């Protein structure tokens, strides 16, 4: 049952992604309701999967890299559904679907332990800390997507060559605002997540702590530079793409190192 739910979610994200690719290839892309419906259906399947997984593990399902990847995909879509529509960036969904798809696909095909893992110690603050941190990465993920959209649109305007995507992508000014706000949201959530981590009084895992603190500091510096008007929107867009990519790429390594005794 669990596996079927995950497959259904993957197929929903794939359908949305596939439609986007097809429409782009045919040169007549425009955001449609189909994308949102497919992503929402995928979100419902993932939510049910995570609920059942949480019941099986007796805690928030964030106890293995497999769990983290699935939860990350869910958090990304959650932030898209909650925040994306507020910015009227309907096309965000078309870009969110592939990322959500690849995260779930990675969880599926990577040589990971798919069996539920039970925590030795149950502490609600630890669960709150872990869940909020992953949701914060969801916001960073969406900032990355807004950054990709910004760079695409900016490059079209700069190069004087417009594709059908030009007419559907939002103005770069709006994308820059969304990009900045999403980084702020992620940073705020990560800060609260850190606070919850300290309140839990759990033993500090040095690898995880250093990696998380480094990411928190770098995003903080980005926001500070933006505040001081020394970081142009293009650079913020590029850095939010690079940072999120780095965070996702290094995730397995950090998870592996932090699980070693």
């Amino acid at each position, binding site marked *: 049952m669990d596996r079927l739910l995950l497959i259904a979610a993957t197929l929903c994200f794939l359908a949305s992604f596939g439609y986007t690719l097809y429409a782009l290839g045919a*040169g*007549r892309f425009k955001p449609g309701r189909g994308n949102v419906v497919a992503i929402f259906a995928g979100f419902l399947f993932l939510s049910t999967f995570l609920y059942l997984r949480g019941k099986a593990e007796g805690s928030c399902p964030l106890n293995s890299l497999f769990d983290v990847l699935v939860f990350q995909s869910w958090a990304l879509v959650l932030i898209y559904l909650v925040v994306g529509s507020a910015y009227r960036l309907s096309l965000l969904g078309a870009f969110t679907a592939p990322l959500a798809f690849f995260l779930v696909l990675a969880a599926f095909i990577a040589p990971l332990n798919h069996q539920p893992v039970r925590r030795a110690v149950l502490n609600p603050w630890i669960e709150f800390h872990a869940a909020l941190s992953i949701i914060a990465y969801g916001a960073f993920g969406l900032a990355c997507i807004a950054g990709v959209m910004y760079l695409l*649109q900016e490059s079209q*305007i*700069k190069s*004087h*060559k*417009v594709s*059908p995507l*030009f*007419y559907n*992508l*939002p*103005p*770069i*000014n*709006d994308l820059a605002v969304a990009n900045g706000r999403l980084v702020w949201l992620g940073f705020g959530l990560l800060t609260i997540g850190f606070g919850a981590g300290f309140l839990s009084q759990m033993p500090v895992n040095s690898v995880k702590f250093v990696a998380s603190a480094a990411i928190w500091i770098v995003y903080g510096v980005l926001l500070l530079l933006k505040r001081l*008007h020394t*970081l*142009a*929107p*293009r*650079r913020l867009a590029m850095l939010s793409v690079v940072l999120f990519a780095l965070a996702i790429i290094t995730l397995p390594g950090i998870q592996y190192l932090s699980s070693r005794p």
Partner: protein
Amino acid sequence: MNILCAGLNHQNAPLDVREKFAVGSHQLAETLSAVRAIGGLSGAVILSTCNRVEFYAASLCPVRAFDDLRNLLHARSGLDAPLYFHDTPGSVRHLFRVVSGLDSMVLGETEILGQVKKAYSAAAEFGATTSHLNKLFQHAFRVAKHVRTETQITRGATSVGAVAVELAGKIFGDLTGRRVMILGAGDTSERTARSLVSRGVKTVIVSNRTYERAAKLAEEIGGLAIHFDHWQNVFSDVDILICSTAAPSTILTREKLAPLMKERAGRPLFVIDLAVPRDVESSVNELEGVFLYDMDSLEGIVSQTLEVRRSEIVRCEKMIADQVGTFVSWLKRHQGLRS
């Protein structure tokens, strides 16, 4: 019952001929009455725009009705109208192509739909439409909407000014409150500035080597005039710069603009260089946050837009052919029921 369409348009008659046959709003009631008095006609709609004068009617004997219509037009204008003539299903196809913008001078233009709607409403108001014509025009409006929504036939802007406004929208989003500076008070820059003002641009600053000319243009478009030597002083507040001076060499270089961009706190700058020879060094486009368009690049976008529209013609024609089939089937069924 057949649907008849007769008329002349920009493809088969020059303006000086078209204007002889144009039907102004003050002549509409009288002309509709005269057309409806033609034997065998049971309804009529007259579409008269700057690019076409067309008569749509329901008729049992279209060929005779067409001859009578030609005579009527000759009697009114004293000229032989170079009329084209379509009978069902050609007339239906022609109307569907007209409302979809496929028969327009600028391929895919959307103004024609409003004009056809207006012509149909006027005819309906005068009681000149029949159930066949009502069905035909309602169907045509649905076809136009379908073609527009499902294809890219209306996509993009097709004039230099409209492209500039579209690009400004894609850079800044809402143009309300944005500031425009015009360097050199030329006609094209004035038209572009007016388009931007109509989209909500807040302030227009005009600067020209001859201050009086700048002041005159500023007054006309509700802007502010400044002396040409001072334009750099207010530059940091400007979002869109339109250049069209008659300077023999560039007035805005990368070296000059780079330090000014640092004062803008990351705000983008859209530079529209309409001058020939150009006012702005092309390498300015390489600066972060600067988007430079000259006449060639603006016309390049127009060409790309028209190319996209042309590539959609086949799809549009296919949709229209399907819809003509649907309407003609209805027409036959309707006649079958009546007989």
